[in-house]
């Protein structure tokens, strides 16, 4: 049974359900996949520039209607991108969206025997720490929430996916943990690099890994095509000191002592003048880099964009 289904995946005939398809990354995934197989997008937002053959279901993951998507049958894979991470939203809403919604999705994957599940997690689940080894492997503990409680949800989603991986050996569960994704996406790292004058912390210049959004999409595509399961770190091109990244963009920086930056950012955050919560400062203070040897050997992943192209991608027209 599973043998037959696995063959079918390689043929690429079955439906792929993509949650969070209306985000910038989701739309890129849709653009790659819709030429190869039927794509069903699940997202409550509007889908700008939707390819005609993509079936967009405007619904919330927590709604019962989600089950109908699976009931229609022939779902060969699920790609979960629909993780909410907006530190301005309430913790309760976050939790219910990320954990409850994802839990429902996992139930349907198990119930309808979907053979493949790809979950986009993040290397942020490891968290920047002073005692981090230079390169974290997939076995490293997920301490991201230790200093930054808002990302506990993301850690929990990753954990849920892991326990699903163990409970359902017949499903090929793939968890991808990319480093900072750069490009047209609106995440903290890209937003930071788009600032006119990005602040840095005086006396700190950690090594940083970044990855181009298209390389992440390619890795998801590979995870879908290949018969693989497990957790994969994705590291992008060679690591660079933060100062070199900022030099590529040629922007003036604003070095601030950490002891000033933290209270100042807390203040600005409280006044709604910034979109960066203070714990994010740890990312420009400590290393949080990953070893992606596993993705390179098992998934056949290799970044196509070099460091310069990856960093410059944040300047692309939105």
């Amino acid at each position, binding site marked *: 049974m599973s043998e037959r289904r696995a063959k079918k995946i390689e043929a690429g005939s079955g439906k792929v359900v993509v949650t969070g398809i209306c985000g910038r990354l989701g739309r890129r995934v849709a653009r790659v996949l819709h030429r190869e197989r039927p794509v069903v997008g699940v997202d409550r937002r509007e889908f700008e520039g939707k390819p005609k053959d993509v079936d967009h279901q405007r619904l919330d993951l927590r709604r019962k209607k989600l089950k109908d998507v699976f009931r229609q049958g022939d779902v060969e894979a699920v790609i979960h991108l629909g993780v909410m991470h907006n530190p301005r939203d309430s913790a309760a809403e976050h939790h219910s969206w990320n954990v409850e919604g994802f839990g429902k999705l996992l139930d349907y994957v198990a119930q309808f025997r979907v053979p493949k599940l790809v979950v986009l997690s993040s290397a942020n689940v490891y968290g920047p720490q*002073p005692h*981090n*080894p*230079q390169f974290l492997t997939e076995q490293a503990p997920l301490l991201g929430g230790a200093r930054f409680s808002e990302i506990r949800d993301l850690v929990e989603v990753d954990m849920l996916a892991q326990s699903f991986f163990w409970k359902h050996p017949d499903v090929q569960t793939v968890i991808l943990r990319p480093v900072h994704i750069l490009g047209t996406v609106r995440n903290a790292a890209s937003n930071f690099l788009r600032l006119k004058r990005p602040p840095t912390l005086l006396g700190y210049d950690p*090594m940083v890994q970044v990855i181009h959004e298209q390389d992440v999409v390619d890795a998801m595509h590979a995870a879908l095509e290949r018969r693989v399961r497990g957790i994969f770190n994705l590291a992008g091109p*060679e690591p*660079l000191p933060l100062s*070199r990244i900022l030099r590529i963009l040629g922007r003036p920086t604003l070095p601030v002592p950490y002891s000033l930056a933290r209270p100042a950012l807390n203040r600005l955050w409280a006044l709604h003048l910034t979109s960066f919560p203070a714990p994010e400062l740890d990312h420009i203070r*400590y290393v949080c880099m990953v070893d992606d040897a596993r993705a390179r050997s098992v998934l056949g992943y290799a970044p196509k964009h070099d460091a310069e192209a990856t960093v410059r991608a944040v300047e692309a027209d939105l």
Partner: protein
Amino acid sequence: MARDTSLLRRSQTLGSALLGELGSLAQRAVDRSMTEMLGGESFERRIARVPLNLGRSGVDAFGLDPVWTKYALAATAYLHRRYFRTEVFGAKSVPPGRVLLISNHSGQVPIDGALIGASMFMDAEPPRFIRAMVEKWSQTLPFVSLLFSRVGQVVGVPENAKRLLEQDEVLLVFPEGARGISKTFDKRYQLVDFGLGFMRLAMETKTPIVPVAVIGGEEQYISVGNVEPLARLFRMPAFPVMPQLLLPGGALPLPTRYRIHFGEAMHFTGDADDDDSVIEEKVWLVRATIQSMINRGLRDRKHVFW
């Protein structure tokens, strides 16, 4: 107003031009004196011969930047050749490729590490940049963490050590740790217990161990006691009592003459996850080798200061 800003800008460019001129002057002076200390080979050329794993950006994955390391080396080279007038024995016998340097630790301040680094660059063939492991909390300090990373010092976790050896670096380890460096004067040149981690690491990565004996460090700061309550209070590994600090200029280490002895490489094989008792035996062998190198070195030394 417009004239003001143009004046300001002109004085700024003038200022930066002056600074740049001064910088290049200093750089030439450093290069000249280094070339002299290296016995004729140009500083740049010697640095170019150091085997490194640099990325396209000119920095390695751990953040080592040869441009920063160059200036750190110039400073330690001065200590090495002029201040402590180190005599180095056996540096030529350090094998190429991955190496674990295992040394005694002494002197209250880790000058011994810096001098071993200087001699591996100035006296060994091919010249090497040594890597060492630093305390985890040092990463929380501004500038310090940056400097450590750029000159190749990495956070002290086993994963980093393993990765460095796998990329064929020279790794310096003081298995005595903080207890070794803060010895009081009556305990000088007596090795304290060694940790076992380095031996497991060497066996796992099939790395030769080079025993190193450093002589001269114990007399640079003379510690007559250790105030444990104060050490606990300041969260320091020890609080040494050093009478010389009361003298004018006593904050500087005494200009003893250092002797660094590099021993023959030792090779260990077996299961890295063996029982402590098995590993301890091998560690004991290394420790005994270093202790006898120290004893011999002390016997042959004619004077502490010259």
